[in-house]
Structure formats: structure tokens, C-alpha cells
């Protein structure tokens, strides 16, 4: 099923399917390694709509909550 990044559980892995947003945002994420067809793993999620940290290609990235909602991920549930 496809959910957004904020709905993933810590430790859960999934495949990025879509990034919604302006070109600048999509570009920046892409160049940090987050783009469709990539496998990402959620590391942690901070309280009260805080940043979401994910791991992609051995590197951790912190993504703000609002941004994370626009990253759609397919997970096996």
C-alpha cells in the first residue's frame, strides 16, 4: 500500500513512489538521494509533528513534517 512518509513506522522500509511539490523541493530531495524507486528506511519520528529522519544509501536525512507528508512511499503491510 502507498502511504506518506509520516505514516511509516520507525524501522519500516519502503520504496519511494512519488514526491509531490515544487521543482526546487523535488530536485533538492533527489540530489540528497530521495527519489522514486529508491528504498528508504524510516529511522525516527519526532514528537508533535516534528522532523522525520530516514536512511537512504547509508545516509541519514532529516525531513520536516510537512515535507515528509509529500513523500509517498510504498510499503508491504
Amino acid at each position, binding site marked *: 500500500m502507498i502511504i506518506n512518509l509520516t505514516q511509516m513506522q520507525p524501522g519500516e522500509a519502503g520504496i519511494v513512489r512519488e514526491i509531490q511539490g515544487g521543482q526546487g523541493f523535488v530536485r533538492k530531495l533527489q*540530489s540528497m538521494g530521495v527519489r522514486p524507486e529508491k528504498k528508504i528506511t524510516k*529511522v525516527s519520528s519526532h514528537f508533535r509533528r*516534528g*522532523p522525520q529522519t530516514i536512511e537512504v544509501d547509508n*545516509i*541519514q536525512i*532529516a525531513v*520536516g513534517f510537512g515535507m515528509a507528508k509529500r513523500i509517498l512511499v510504498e510499503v508491504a503491510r
Partner: protein
Amino acid sequence: MNNIEKILLVGNPNVGKSAIFSRLTGAKVIISNYPGTTVEFTQGKLKLGEETALIVDVPGTYTLEPTCKAEDVACRMVKEGGVAINIVDATNLERNLHLTLQLLEDDIPVIVALNMWDDTKHRGISIDVKKLEEQLGVPVVPTCGLSGEGIKELIERLPQAKARSLPVSSDAQKWEKIGKIVEEVQKLTHRHHTLLEILEDLSIKPLTGLPIALGIIYCAFWVVRFIGEGLIGHIFEPLFTKLWLPLLMKLSTLLGEGSFLHHILIGNLIEGKIDFSQSFGLLTTGLYVPIAMVLPYILSFYLILGLLEDFGYLPRLAVLMDNFMHHLGLHGYAIIPFILGLGCKVPGVLATRILEERREKFIAATLLAIGVPCMAQIAMIVGLVGQRGGKYVVLIFLILFLLLIIKGLVLNRFLKGTSPEILVEIPPYRIPQVTAVTKKLWMRLSGFLKEALPLVLLGVLFVNILYTLKIIDFFAYIFAPVLTNLWGLPKEAISALIVGFLRKDVAVGMLGPLNLTTKQLVIGSTILSLYFPCIATYMVLIREIGIKDTLRSTIIMLVVALGVGILLNSIL
């Protein structure tokens, strides 16, 4: 290609450009383990046989189409031409190659440095360098900036750098191409999680991360204090009282109290003796304040900061603080300028370049300029107010911290727009290397001695001249209504406010000889932190956020200082 005139070091953030720069030029630059350490380009020289080439450390960028100020600097530099050494993080080949392909589409000659090569081994990554070279069509040299491995080969092969001028492709095409290249040249083997990686995870998960953050901040605070106090009590204080004082007493007798030179060099004798914190001569207080009171704390602060920076802790703190910082109109990464500002506000304000938008830069710079005391000032407040009891020191910092939050809340509420969200790479933990930490500490200390010490001496000289010419009396007379009626300070305190434009440490020190009550001392120290940053900070502020925003910021400073002074005077 024969004559290389300009070499650009281009790469993603935190891939070790500054370490390579430092290796190539022998120049001393600040290197840390977090993205955005270099926000301004740094230049150096490299000897290539007979010729000398200009070499530029370009701020890290993910793309040649800029999304923030630091990236904008990078893009402009690349357009100006030269030879590009593309620094690539070997542990992150795929992502880094995107910028490489963009460079290859430009007409700039490129050579690739496959940096952090030593890290690939224990991360279970193996890269076929020869194949990568074939795929890219430009030289590829494995390097390790921190140890210096591969730097010689990099220089030797520099003339082989080639401009590919590949046809411009879309992002999607580039990623597809990169996918193929990586599949061809890189092999990953499974490996077990190391202790550091377990620690990485623990310190980024909120349930364990927050206690760890509190623990680290608490420990850092006590270690800074312990080392600072230890250095003062065991080294600097004895040095001044046992060695320097007897010499000065002889000089004092020689010059004769009351002479002009005695006044300038030694200052006033307190009950017939030199008092290092009250005499206010160039050789007495002028040296004592920067060296025996401030330097020890600068040393201990930058030692701990350097360790935290190189370990890679700061970006994690930024993520943990993100929620809180949003209330102030900033995102978590803005914590980095604040932490640097605790050392000195000049690098602090410069670091606001890592923030994307004008609004958040303005908020960060304003809060930094008037809400965050620098280490020179902190040391003096601890030294001076601490004599009246530690709780008063705590009170001052509590007031400043509360004000910082209130100012942030107010600015966030009334400035149009919202705070952008954090999007940052979190570097892996690395064990700090002794030589790297010592080198950085030395650079920062010598920076303090070269830039701050002369200003302190100038400040002391300036005050003495103003006193001699009775100019202080004139200002004291004019500002007496504000100082005495509103803030409850003696009108002579104006001298501290005047010197505060130049140096905060001397300014706080000048409150010493005024025989203030504890309440007055608390009010005076607080106002000195609020009304205006020192001139060096102010100049950087103008450069970074522009005159208009600086003026807006100045108005906030003056209003806050006036209001807080009145408030404290009536409630304390």
C-alpha cells in the same frame, strides 16, 4: 591543457572539501563534520611546478542551480571558469555523481577526487576506480583529505583534467545514467552495525535522543567551566599575580603615580596597589581581561565545540531542537549559528547563510546579535558577577534566555511568512582526530589573540583618553536621565556602554570599578548584552542581511534594552 590558473574545489556539502583544500594549500581553514561549515569561499595558492595556481574552496552544493546563498556562491564560482576538482564522497557515490554529471555537461575541465576513501573499507563498499574513470571519461583519484592519502597523485594528474561538454540531459536521464554507472563500478558487502552506528540511531530517536542531548549539553557546560576555572586558578591568575605584578609595581614606581604614562599604562592605583580588574591601564587590566579572564574560557569552549563538531553531533541536536525552534520562526538547523555565536558572534552571523530565506535569516541574525552573549562576555560576567554569588550569574543568563525566546516568539508572530522546514543530511559519527581538533583550536585561539586582543587594548586606551579629556563626563551628563532614572545605574556607567560598541569583555569589566550594588551589576551586565552587538558583529550583520534589515534589527535592540532595563530596575 598547460596553464592552470584557477582550481575550484566543487562538491556536495560535507564531503571533505575543506580538508582537501587545507592539504593542497597548507592553509588553515575550519573543518567540521557537518554540512555547511564553509559558507564563504576561501582562497589559497598551490604551486604547480613553475606556476602558482589560485585554488578556491567553494561552499558545498547539491546542484549548479542554487537554492540558498551558500549554493549561489558555489554556482557563480563555477560559471567563472577554471579547473574543477570535483570532490566526491566515496561512501555515497550515487548521490554525489549527480553534481559530477552536471559539471561534465559544463565546459569546465574536471578531475574527480574520490574522497573519504578510507571510510569505504569498513563500510563494506568497494569501488572499481578504473571502471569509474572509463565511465566518466575524466581522471578519478581516490583520496583521504584527513590523512593526506592520494593528494600527491591528485596534484600530479591535475593537468589531465578534461572538459567533456556532454549534451545537456534532464534530471531523470542523469539518474538513470548514474544508476548504470554505480551498478557497474560499486559492490556492497553486508556488514554488522558498529557501536558508533548504534549510537547514531540512539541519539536521533526522540525517546533516547532527548536525554542524550540534555546529558551532552550538561556535560559540555561543566567541562567548559571546569577547564576554564582550572586554567585561571592554576595558570593564568598565578602568572599575573606572582610574575607580572611585581614587574608592574616597579614600573609604577618608576613612572610615578599621576603621570600621564602611568595613567595610560598602569592606570589608577587602588589603595596604593595595582588591582588587575580595577586599575584600567593598558598593561594591567588591558592584558588581564583578555588573557587571564577571557582566554581560558575561549580555550575550553572551543575545545569542546571542536570535539562536538568533528564527532558530528551538532546536526542531531538540530533535528531534536527543530520543534522548539519553529516557535521562534526558525528551523532546527538554525541552532548551529547560535552555538557558534556562543563562541563569537562574527562566525555565528556568517553561519546564518545556511538558512534559506530572508525572514529566517533576519530572525536568526537579530536573535543572535542581541540575545546570545559571546564567550568573552560570558567569561567576564562569570568573573565579575560570580564574585557576588553564582545565583546572580544564573539569573542574568536566565533573563537573556527568556528574552531570546520572547523575542523569537514575537518576531515569528509579527513578521509575514512562516518558518521553512528542515531538510538536512545527518553525517555519520566520526571519532575526532587529535591533530585536527588541536589545529582547529589553535586557529580559533590565534584568531582571538590577533583580532580581539588589539581591540581590547584599543578599548582600554580609548576609555583612558576619553576620561582624560573629560568626554566621558559630557556623555554621562547627557545620558544621566536614562541611566539613573530609568535603569537605576550611576551615570558613570555610560563609559561601559560606550566601550561596549568596541568590545563586550572590556565593557563588562568597566562595571567593576564603579562600586555597583549587586542589583545594578545584574542590570548593567544584562543591558550590555542587549543594547548593541560589538562593532565587528555589526559590520558582518550589515554585510549579511543588508542595511535595511540591520537598521530594523537595531531598533529592536534599542527598544528591548531600554524596556528590559526599566523592567529589571522596577522588579529586582
